[in-house]
C-alpha cells in the first residue's frame, strides 16, 4: 500500500502521516498485526526528517493504532480500527474552543487567556 504526503500542504507532515496510516487501517488495506516500515525506511522513502516520522509513530502509539515490539519492529495494534476513529486533536480543539467561549463570556481578554494558558501549561509540565 502506498501513502502520499504533500510537502506544500498546510497540514503538518506528521499529521498527514498519521491520517494516511489511520485511513489505511480504516479502509482495511492494513489490519491488526501487519508490520509497518521502520522510521528510517519511511523517512528516507518520503525524504523527511527521521524526527517527523518518529513523532507520527509516537502519537499513533499513544492512540493505540500501532504498537512497537522492540527490535521486531512496529505493528498495527489489535484495536487499531476502533482507535483510528478517535480524533484526539479534534477533541482538544473542541474542548479549548468551549473553554475560550466561557472565558470570553466572563470578560477575559485574548491576551489574558493566552498568558493564563501558557502559565497553566508551564505549571502542568512542572
Amino acid at each position, binding site marked *: 500500500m502506498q501513502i*502520499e*504526503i504533500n*510537502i506544500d500542504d498546510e497540514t503538518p507532515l506528521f499529521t498527514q502521516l498519521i491520517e494516511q496510516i489511520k485511513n*489505511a487501517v480504516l479502509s482495511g488495506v492494513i489490519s491488526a498485526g501487519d508490520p509497518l*516500515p521502520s522510521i528510517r525506511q519511511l523517512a528516507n*522513502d518520503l525524504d523527511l526528517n527521521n524526527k517527523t516520522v518518529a513523532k507520527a509513530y509516537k502519537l499513533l502509539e499513544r492512540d493505540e493504532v500501532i504498537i512497537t515490539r522492540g527490535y521486531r519492529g512496529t505493528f498495527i495494534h489489535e484495536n487499531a480500527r476502533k482507535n483510528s476513529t478517535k480524533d484526539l486533536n479534534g477533541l482538544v480543539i473542541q474542548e479549548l474552543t468551549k473553554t475560550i467561549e466561557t472565558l470570553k463570556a466572563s470578560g477575559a481578554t485574548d491576551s489574558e487567556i493566552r498568558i493564563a494558558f501558557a502559565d497553566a501549561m508551564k505549571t502542568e509540565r512542572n
Partner: protein
Amino acid sequence: MIDTILTYIALAGQLYVLSYYYPKLLADRMSYVIDNHPASEFPKLYPFKNGEEKAKEGLVQFKFITTLILIIGILLLLDSIAFQFSFGDSAATALVAGFALIQIAPFIWIEISELKQYSMMRAKIKTSKRTADLKPRKYFDYASPVTFSIAVLLLITYLIFNFYRNGFSLVGDGMITFGALLIMHIFFAFLVYWVMRGQKINPHLSAEDRDRHITGTVKNTLYVSIIASLFLLVFGLIQHYDLDHYEAMSISIYWQLIAHLGIGTMLRENKLEDLNFDVYRDDTAAS
C-alpha cells in the same frame, strides 16, 4: 603445454565476455532506451541540459572505449600465443588480472554516470507530492535463504581453510586476504542496507521497479560473495599444490563468473520490458 592452451582459451573467453558480450548488451540496452524514450516525451529521463545528445555521446564513447579495449586484448592474446607467455607464470597472472581491471573500467564509468544522472534527477524534482510503500523491506524478501546459506557456508569453509594453510597464525598473507574479504563483505552489507533502507537512488523509480533493483543488488552481492569464496578456495589449492601455471586461467574464469553473476544478474532482474518508463514523462502528460 595444455595449461598454456587452457589459459589462452580462458583469456579469449574473458575478452568475449567482458569486452564484447556484456558491453554489446549494455550498449543495445542504452540504444533502445534513447531511441524509444526521446527527451520530448520523457523529459525526466534526461536531467542534464541537452540530455538526449549527451546520452548519445556517452553511448558512442562507451562503444569506442570497449571496442578499443577489445582490440588491445586481442593483440595481447595474439602476442601471448606468439611468445607463449615467455615472460613467466606470475607475469601471465598479472596480465590477466590487470587487463580484467581495465575491462571492467567502462562498466564502473557507466555506473558512476548513472549515479550522477540520478543525483541530477533528485535536484530537479519539482513535485510537492511524495509517496512511500507502507510495507517494511526485509532482507529475505529479496534473498533466497538457500543462496544466503551457501554464501555463508562457503565463506566459513574458506576462512577455516585459510587459517589451516597459515598454521592458525594471525599474521601473514592469509590475514591480508581475510582482511580484504572482510572489507568486501562490510561494503556489501552497507550497499544492501543503502538500497533497502536508504533514500531512493533513482527518485522517479516506481515501487515495483525499486523492488526489482533491490532484488538485483541483493542477489548480486550474494553471488559475488559465493564466487569470491570459491575462487579463493581454488586459488589456495592451486598455491598449496604448486600449480602456479593454472593461476592466470583461474583468475580469468573468476572475472568471467563475476561478470555473468554481477552484470548479468542486474540485467536479468531489470529487464527493459518490465520497467515503467511512464514515470519519466512530464507530470502534466503522465497518466
